[in-house]
């Protein structure tokens, strides 16, 4: 991979993940529907995962897996620590989303609406 392509890739991944985080925060802060707020939080999750993976990347890197033929390419391997971290973070993010959605189902059952404006005592 030449230098220019690597720069474009790096800026793309880091800038894109920052953009994703901001989009998710915007959705979570301004939208009035509870489902959309949860979607926003999920987008923040995805952005943070992409940012962590992007930080762990090295130039001309390969996956940190010693498959046949790649046993001696240790120097080229990307950092495995952020990937392991992100594996944990995805599972935790999933658990958080599941619990949040169950709370939304419960709220819908009580108030018959998903708009937070119409649910009293829950205004921004």
């Amino acid at each position, binding site marked *: 991979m030449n230098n220019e392509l690597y720069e474009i890739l790096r800026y793309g991944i880091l800038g894109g993940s920052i953009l994703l985080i901001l989009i998710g925060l915007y959705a979570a802060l301004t939208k009035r529907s509870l489902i959309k707020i949860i979607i926003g939080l999920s987008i923040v999750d995805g952005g943070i995962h992409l*940012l962590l993976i992007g*930080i762990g*990347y090295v130039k001309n890197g390969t996956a*940190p897996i010693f*498959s046949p033929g790649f046993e001696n390419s240790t120097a080229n391997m990307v950092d495995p620590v952020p990937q392991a971290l992100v594996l944990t973070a*995805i599972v*935790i993010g999933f*658990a958080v989303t599941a619990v949040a959605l169950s709370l939304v189902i419960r709220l819908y059952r009580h108030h018959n609406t998903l708009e937070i404006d119409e649910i009293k005592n829950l205004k921004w």
Partner: protein
Amino acid sequence: MKKLIVILLLAVTGYFMVISFMDLGKDGPVVKNGVKDFYLDKTVSELKVANTITSIVVNFRGFDTLGEVTVLFLAATALGGILYKKRHHVGERSVLFPSSTIVKAGSKLLFPAIILLGVYVFVHGHLSPGGGFQGGTIIATGFLLMLLAYDNFSVSHKVLSYIESFAGIFFVLFGLSGMFMGKTFLENFMPVGNLNDLFSGGIIPIIYILVGFKVAAELTGLIYTVLNEKE
């Protein structure tokens, strides 16, 4: 007005994120002299596991994974507790529209293949990309397909909770036997074999298979609980 405040806030946040993150990796790897080389070296020389991420998740940070599995279990329990109500008639679900014959026949055809793929992914978790969490999720998607296609398809919560409990208990038991046979919790006390063999890595594949069963059972139960929700 509110949106303007939010946009201003996010602009400030974005500015600081850009100036702190955009220069990362400009000259060489971001983390120098980190634990990367230690992990890559030990994975091949000591554990004989091909996938470094698996060796980190299950062996070096195995205790973390136990906590993670516990969090997933707690989420499933919390979901069941929040959505609990006395069910008068279990078995029929409220579906928006009945699925057609094509969907039914197709999902019957795909279901075993999806289960097989999930089992493949978590059995080969120490050799190729994938592992217990990923394989378990694939199996749960197979169950989701069946639950969406057939409105009378049901899974037994009892069986699911037995699978879940046994997988969790055996995870802890393997950790404790590492403590008794070696020095530390989750120590790799079994013979490690050769690199890139299916039977290699000591307790790592066994624990990842257990994690796969646990995640599959938990996610299936979670999906089933939410799908059974009705007005």
